[in-house]
Structure formats: structure tokens, C-alpha cells
């Protein structure tokens, strides 16, 4: 069967913040650039970001990129690469000002500068006191960002392929990346995008967990495609959780609810935070609260049929106060928990929010993988940025507002690197003879299989396994069982069956193809988490507690290293953290405390 081939200088998979930022660099350099997206660009998940983007502009008070760098290294629990972190923090002002020139409607100070507000973990003078560093456009920062960058791309003649799903990465025998295979949803047609440069900007994969704040689109397609092409995934054990998402739905409940007097209770209505944090109680920090909730659930004191959530009680508060101070919470309870929170407590659970790991990249946006003894050998023709990539600036834990910065800085640098490599003469390489065979085989297996596994049930089994065995607080025995369980789920995920065989708009097929990506990410996460026997940042193990020898359970002697999960044989290897910034002194190892 002959498959149409579309030839571009560059193909970018993803039209969220990272993809749009890369595309601007390529199109404005006069290169023929295609951007593929499962949805209309301004429906990408970047829209959900409300908090803001970090940059040490110093508009409201003194600030400096070295302070931002210090906070980011500390936030990462020293797992972030200090060269990449310096690169990002130093570039922040430039990319934010550029965005302003693209027409981004930032909030302003009275004298017309970009208004900045404080955000958790961002401090002045190397951790002294909070600093105003976050730049926002009301509570629609991500949304405004996408609109500004989309318009800029339209002007620069970027070609958008909207409602197209990339399926597999094309690599030749020497390992060069030559583009992707993709499916046009409207027709079901498979097409080859043949490119001199391929950039992944596919966003996160938070849907591997049962409870996730991520929209349904975050199925880790870029990671799945990279894994199927033999590229290892970095630091996949690190996922940031938020303590209070609505159980079953994932929708965030603001921390303000506990601030106003909300109380967490277990199945016997006990106010359990009194046992874990006698002073701060329900107002203890995010990680303490999340861990306490996870412990209650693990020890059988959770609520509901599956005993898998706890309760957030505000029924003792004055209804008028709730409606005034916590607007939206009543509606969220009704819509997503079926609960009138004025009369009944809300079911809540620690909820997955952000993926720190991903496709390993250099800070130039070039993808790197081990080859011939070099752990950071460049994969020619392949670039990545945004949440799907691991530069690594977030290390073991991301600071709020640093991910929008990540996608601007590394989206741009991936684009710049591609321009540089193409201008240096990188040509279209010949497509392998079997270029689309694997993709076609996957599709035909889905279409023809009888008696296979149901997509919805398989996804649920994966999500439950991840939530129970690799959630916000991790237990050695549970992780071990989790590895076995997720490998079982993988077997089902390799045997999916769909009933609908139509070509046009076959959403059942699309969801099955997404499931094949999700399982790669879930497996990488579980196996990487089981292997790391310390606690660090967002990876917290019950059997690696806080001791005098290992404060917070962190063990730098053995574990100051990045995990690389190899999808080829499910094996783990490690590579060193880059502790050497580009121009300044390294941020020395210290216990992380706030």
C-alpha cells in the first residue's frame, strides 16, 4: 500500500505553549514548518494554566536571575541540571518580553510595567523571603499566551494540521529521526511527515493516574512514541501531586478551603491531621497533608466502597462565608462529587498534577540518549520541549510558574537548535523501506482483533494501579506489587479490541492508540519509582524516612543521579546530574527545607 508523504523542513508535534513557541522560530527563519495537533491549538492544555509565568524582571521589587536559579535548584531537591537551570532562569526575561511584543495582555502596574505577584517557592536573595516574580494575564495566563503565539504563527505562515494525531516516530538504521507517521482524524488516513527536524511538544501524561488534574488529552503520546522508537525516558518516578482533588474527578479544590477552616476526616470522622501535625493540623504544608491522606487510605481508614478517599468537611462553616470567600466550591461539589458541601463533606484525594520527567534533552532542546558509552549522545534530527521533555530543570519537584517558563525557553531553544542544524546543511534523509509498517500493523491489529481487552477497562486498571501503588506517598511492598500489576495491565494494553471499524472520526480507535502511549508512561513510572530507594522531592517513600544521616530521606551518596528507563527491556540505568552551571558558581547541596 502506498502512503502519502508530506515533506517539510520541520515537523512539530503539539500546538500547546512549547510547540507554538518552537514553530515561531522555525517559520520566522523561513523554514517550511508543519505543526500537528490533536485539537485546535488554543484548546491545548496550556489554557488551564492560571497562575502565571516566572521571570526575575524585578518590576515590583529587586530580583535577580541567580536568585531564581537558586530557588529552582532547591525546589528540584538538587536533581535539576544546573547548566539547564541557569540557561532557563537567565533567558526568562527575554522570553517574557518577547511574549509581550507578540501581544500578550499581561497585568500591568500603574506605571505600565508587567505586574508581578508572589508564588510558592520563589524567594529573594537566595531563599530569604518571598519575592514577586510571577507574571500573569488575569487568571487566564496560559490561554492568553496561546492566543498571542498562535496569531504570531499564522502571520509567519506556519502550516497547522489540526485534529491530526501523530502515531510513531520515524528513525532510520543509524538512529536519525526523519519525521512521524500520523493519522488525519477526519478521514482515518495515515500519512508520513518527512522532515529534516522533528520536534516533540506533546505535553504531559497525567492521565496515567486515577485522580489527575490534567485534562483527558494528556495521554503522553510523545513519550509513548519515543519509547517505541527505543529512546529512554528520564526521571519518570517524579510526579507532582496536589493534596485536594475531587475524588474520582480530579478537579482541583483550592487550598483556600483549608485556609477558611476546612477539616480533613477519615472514615470514622476523625480529624486525622491532629495526629500528623499537632500544631498546624489541616494547614500543614502540601506534602505533609498529602502524605497523611495517603497513609489513612493505605491503612484502611479511607471512605467509600473502595475506601479510597478522605473527606474535606466545611459543613461547620457559615454558608454565607463559604459562598462569599470560596466562590465556585459549591458548584464544584455539586457538579463533580454530587455533594452539597454546605450539608455534606467533599470526597478528596491527593491528585496528580505535573510530570517532572520525560524525553531526555540537552538545554539546547536536542534530544539525548546513551550511545557508545556517551550517556548524552545527541539523537540527530530530534528535539523536544515543554512538559513532555526533561531538560532537566524541575528535577525531583517543579516550582509553580516554572513550567510555563520551561515551555517558552525550551520551546524557543529547540526551535533555534533546529534552525541552526538545518542551516548547517542537514538534509532530508532517505526514508526506510518499512517506514510505516509498525504503525500500520498496530492499526490493523486494533481493527482485526477479536476477544481482546476493552480500552476503557484497561485504562481504569492502569489508573487504579498507578494511584494505589505509585501515588503521592510510596511504600516498598506496594511498589514491588505495582510493578507486577502494571506488567499485567501492559499485556492487556497490547491486546486492545475496538468495535467501531470506521475510517472517519473513529474516536474509539484514537482512544485505543492513546492507551498504547499511556501504558508506556505508566510502566516507566512504576519501574523507575520502585528502583529509587530514597526519598527526594516529589518521590517520597515510607521506607526512606527523615533521619539524621539522611534528612528528608534523601541519600546523595547513592542517589544523586538521573534515572533512565529503557523501554526496550524495561531496564533502568542512571546518569549523573549536571552540578556545573554555565557561568556562575554551583548551588551547593543542602537539606531542602522551607
Amino acid at each position, binding site marked *: 500500500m502506498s502512503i502519502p508523504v508530506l515533506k517539510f523542513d520541520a515537523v512539530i508535534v503539539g500546538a500547546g505553549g512549547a510547540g507554538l513557541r518552537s514553530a515561531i522560530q522555525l517559520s520566522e527563519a523561513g523554514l517550511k514548518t508543519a505543526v500537528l495537533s490533536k485539537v485546535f491549538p488554543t*484548546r491545548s492544555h496550556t489554557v488551564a494554566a492560571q497562575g502565571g509565568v516566572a521571570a526575575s524582571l524585578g518590576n515590583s521589587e529587586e530580583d535577580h536571575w541567580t536568585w531564581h536559579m537558586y530557588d529552582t535548584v532547591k525546589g528540584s531537591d538538587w536533581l535539576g541540571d544546573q547548566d539547564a537551570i541557569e540557561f532557563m532562569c537567565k533567558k526568562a526575561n527575554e522570553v517574557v518580553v518577547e511574549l509581550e511584543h507578540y501581544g500578550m495582555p499581561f497585568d500591568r502596574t500603574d506605571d505600565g510595567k508587567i505586574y508581578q505577584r508572589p508564588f510558592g517557592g520563589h524567594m529573594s536573595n537566595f531563599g530569604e523571603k518571598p519575592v514577586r516574580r510571577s507574571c500573569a494575564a488575569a487568571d487566564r495566563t496560559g490561554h492568553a499566551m496561546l492566543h498571542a503565539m498562535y496569531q504570531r504563527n499564522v502571520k509567519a505562515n506556519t502550516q497547522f494540521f489540526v485534529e491530526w494525531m501523530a502515531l510513531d516516530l520515524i528513525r532510520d538504521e543509524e538512529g536519525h529521526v526523519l519525521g512521524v507517521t500520523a493519522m488525519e482524524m477526519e478521514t482515518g488516513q495515515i500519512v508520513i511527515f518527512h522532515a529534516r527536524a522533528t520536534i516533540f511538544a506533546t505535553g504531559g501524561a497525567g492521565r496515567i493516574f486515577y485522580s489527575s488534574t490534567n485534562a483527558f488529552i494528556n495521554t503522553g503520546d510523545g513519550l509513548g512514541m519515543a519509547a517505541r522508537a527505543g529512546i529512554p525516558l528520564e526521571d519518570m518516578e517524579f510526579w507532582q501531586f496536589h493534596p485536594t482533588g475531587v475524588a474520582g474527578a480530579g478537579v482541583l479544590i483550592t487550598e483556600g478551603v483549608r485556609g477558611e477552616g476546612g477539616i480533613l476526616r477519615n472514615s470514622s470522622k476523625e480529624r486525622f491531621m491532629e495526629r500528623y501535625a499537632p500544631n498546624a493540623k489541616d494547614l500543614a504544608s502540601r506534602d505533609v497533608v498529602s502524605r497523611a491522606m495517603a497513609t489513612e487510605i493505605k491503612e484502611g481508614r479511607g471512605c467509600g466502597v473502595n475506601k479510597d478517599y478522605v473527606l474535606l468537611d466545611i459543613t461547620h462553616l457559615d454558608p454565607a462565608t463559604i459562598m462569599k470567600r470560596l466562590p465556585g466550591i459549591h458548584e464544584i461539589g455539586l*457538579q463533580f462529587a454530587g455533594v452539597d458541601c454546605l450539608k455534606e463533606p467533599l470526597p478528596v484525594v491527593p491528585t496528580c498534577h505535573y510530570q517532572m520527567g520525560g524525553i531526555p534533552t540537552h538545554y539546547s532542546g536536542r534530544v539525548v540518549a546513551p550511545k557508545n558509552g556517551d550517556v548524552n549522545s545527541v539523537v540527530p534530527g530530534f528535539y523536544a520541549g515543554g512538559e513532555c521533555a526533561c531538560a532537566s530543570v524541575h528535577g525531583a519537584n517543579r516550582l509553580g510558574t516554572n513550567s510555563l517558563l520551561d515551555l517558552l525557553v525550551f520551546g524557543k531553544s529547540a526551535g533555534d537548535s533546529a534552525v541552526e542544524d538545518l542551516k548547517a546543511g542537514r538534509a532530508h534523509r532517505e526514508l526506510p523501506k518499512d517506514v510505516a509498517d509498525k504503525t500500520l500493523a498496530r492499526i490493523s491489529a486494533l481493527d482485526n482483533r477479536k476477544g481482546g481487552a476493552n480500552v476503557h477497562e484497561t485504562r481504569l486498571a492502569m489508573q487504579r494501579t498507578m494511584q494505589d501503588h505509585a501515588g503521592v506517598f510510596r511504600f516498598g511492598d506496594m511498589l514491588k506489587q505495582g510493578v507486577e500489576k502494571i506488567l499485567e495491565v501492559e499485556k492487556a494494553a497490547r491486546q486492545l479490541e475496538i468495535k467501531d471499524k470506521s475510517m472517519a*472520526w473513529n474516536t474509539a480507535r484514537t482512544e485505543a492508540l492513546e492507551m498504547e502511549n499511556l501504558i508506556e508512561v505508566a510502566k516507566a513510572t512504576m519501574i523507575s519509582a520502585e528502583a529509587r530507594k530514597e526519598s527526594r522531592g516529589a518521590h517520597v517513600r515510607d521506607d526512606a524516612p527523615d533521619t539524621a544521616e539522611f534528612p528528608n530521606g534523601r541519600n546523595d551518596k547513592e542517589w544523586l543521579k538521573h534515572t533512565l528507563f529503557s523501554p526496550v527491556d524495561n531496564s533502568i540505568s542512571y546518569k549523573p546530574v549536571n552540578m556545573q552551571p554555565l557561568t556562575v558558581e554551583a548551588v551547593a547541596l543542602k537539606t531542602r527545607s522551607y
Partner: protein
Amino acid sequence: MERANYERLRWRCIRRALLELDITLTRFLDGGEFEKLSDDQQQAFVELADMEDYDLWDLLTGKAEIDDSRLAHMVALIRKS
């Protein structure tokens, strides 16, 4: 509604930018509410689904209102589902 049109609409409802809308719209479609609508009402639903995420979410949470009575009625139906 023709199969392909329905499936396109479904994709545009189950892959939104905001999780809140993913859940709400998926529930409405997969819960069988959509099939019960008249052609006119289905058209109103399609128009709502075409809106930007925050604009639609503001309507569904009552933070904003819409003059068009067809659309307002549809918003009420989705909220009740």
C-alpha cells in the same frame, strides 16, 4: 445526527482544554442525554461546544449569562445532567 458528525462533535467534547469541561460534556454525551434532543437543540449544543473553554465554563457555572434563549436553555440542560 450523522455518525461522522456526531463522532467529530464527541472528539471536540472529550478533548477540551479544561478538565471540568471534559467531564461535564463527556457525561452529557455518553450518558445518552444528547440523543434525546431535537435537531434544533442538538444544533444549540454544537454551538456551545464550539465556544472557547473559559467562556463555556463561565456559562455552565452561572458566572456568565447568554441572551440567546436556545443556548441558555441548553446550558440549563447540561447543568442538570
